[in-house]
């Protein structure tokens, strides 16, 4: 069974095949949700943005005839919605000074990303190490400058080529690649730090 390219699914949807669009949603919702969640850091908001993004795809379908890929278009819509949302949040509230990580105020709702990706209670020691590592990576990702994290997620999670990322983020390919490099270097530093810490602990 061959996999239909995006454009064909869109064509079928335009011809009345609702399931074709559902297939498109299934294809993209995972990586898109990840991308959005890493920016807005809130499950409910992220889902709302995802829904709105696909709605805008439908609304703009008749006008979508550019040379860009569908995925580029979809991510661009989602990215714009994230930007709008973050700008809205910035205007609505001041950064919370009493929160340990004072950068975002939306953590009150639902478990944090770190907690969502692991269940600490049932871990064996080895798993505990893995859990700790994952938590560290999460933290390092979270501490990346927005524009570096964005490129990193688009490349590593969504698997988009640098050319597409450049189009989505509106900067040159060279800028994208240098941001990617900076992101990797920071993660490398966090990894090195963790590994020397882990060594200390096991030596003790």
């Amino acid at each position, binding site marked *: 069974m061959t996999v239909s390219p995006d454009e064909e699914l869109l064509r079928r949807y335009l011809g009345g095949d609702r399931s074709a669009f559902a297939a498109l949603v299934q294809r993209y919702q995972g990586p898109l949700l990840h991308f959005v969640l890493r920016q807005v850091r809130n499950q409910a908001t992220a889902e709302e943005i995802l829904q709105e993004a696909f709605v805008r795809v*439908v609304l703009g379908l008749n*006008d979508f005839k*550019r040379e860009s890929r569908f995925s580029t278009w979809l991510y661009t819509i989602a990215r714009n919605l994230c930007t709008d949302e973050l700008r809205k949040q910035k205007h609505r509230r001041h950064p919370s000074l009493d929160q340990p990580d004072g950068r975002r105020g939306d953590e009150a709702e639902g478990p944090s990303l770190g907690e969502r990706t692991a269940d600490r209670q049932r871990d064996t020691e080895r798993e505990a190490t893995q859990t700790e590592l994952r938590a560290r990576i999460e933290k390092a990702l979270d501490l990346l400058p927005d524009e570096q994290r964005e490129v990193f997620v688009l490349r590593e999670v969504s698997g988009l080529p640098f050319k597409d990322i450049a189009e989505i983020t509106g900067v040159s390919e060279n800028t994208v690649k240098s941001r990617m490099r900076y992101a990797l270097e920071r993660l490398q530093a966090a990894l090195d730090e963790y590994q020397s810490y882990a060594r200390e602990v096991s030596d003790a």
Partner: protein
Amino acid sequence: MDCNTAQSLMMDELYGELAPAESADFHRHLSGCAACDRDFRGFERVRSEARVPAIEVPQGLTDRIMARVDATPRVAPLRSRASRVLSTAGAWAMRPQTAMAAVFLLMVGSSAWLLRRQGEGHNAPAIASERGLPLAADAPQGADGDGFDVEAARGAHGMGGERLRAGPAATAAPPYPQAAQASRKSAAADSYTFDDAPAAPAAAAPAEAKASARSEVSAEREATGGARDFAGAMQTYRSGAYDDATEQFDALAKQGDQQAALMAARSVRERHGCKTAVTRFDHLASSSLGTPAGNDATLDAALCYRRLGLIESSTQRLQRLLAYDGYAARARTEIETNRRILVARREGNALADSASSSQPAAAAGGGASVHASEPPAAKPAAPAKSKAAETPPALR
């Protein structure tokens, strides 16, 4: 390969974006360069050890998304496609003599044809499409419906009606804003002055359709529950209530929605024409430089300038789009159309001038610069904006 090159290609190779030959060169360099090799291996290690923790997709997300999608109004794309084909065809057919004749015929036959068209809905070809008719309840034309339009044709022949009729032209190269006004006043019966957004077509349109579209909007809102603001505004736009649509989109734009800002500008264009809307497009183009919304706005601005007869301003904006992959091909096509318009305009001027034999022909030869016919006064605030707009995106 030297270190500088290897370093600059490192990310490409890391993610498999290098062609085989280049990749081989790269690895050959690594085998002889400890520093680059160490860098590259380090990156490979990070990628494999610092795997990004996966995020689970919540149950039923697809269903929830599809529920919203199902509730979203869709429109048949037929008109857009037909318009596009005919726009291209129209542009290609636009050689000076045939274009002149065609425009003359169109003008003569236009009124009766337009009145007939109002009841036809989606079948009208783009060549005579009247953007001033607000009840075209179909997909927003965006920047696509204007590939070839009559305003451009008029511009090509030195403000149309005046030249084609008998008598010498009043001036050799009139400043365009003034000329536009003069031709508009004297050609009151000319139904192509749709930049005036005459109330007549709007009023003549069946009130019924508008009413049913409105009730659709409120039903839509109830059905989906809560404010589906953007979708609601789009529905308002499609129903032809452009003033309302402008208001709704502006409200969203105030909250930072750039796509809404673009749609607001388009609503203004539908309601009040290019002369009013072009400022909005320019503003959005420069404030959202490099983003899709900004690029769309740049394209819309360019097409509006063309419609206003300001070809050089139009081309200026199109040239900015050449840097963006998704827009370059379109920009090139439109720049070529502009070039043809200027050529036709020059030849039209030459013909009219020789008929009146009063002033020296304006650059009738092929060697003249295409910018000769557009006086500096005709650039509304373009210089300051274009400077800012030409700042490379990397500085953002």
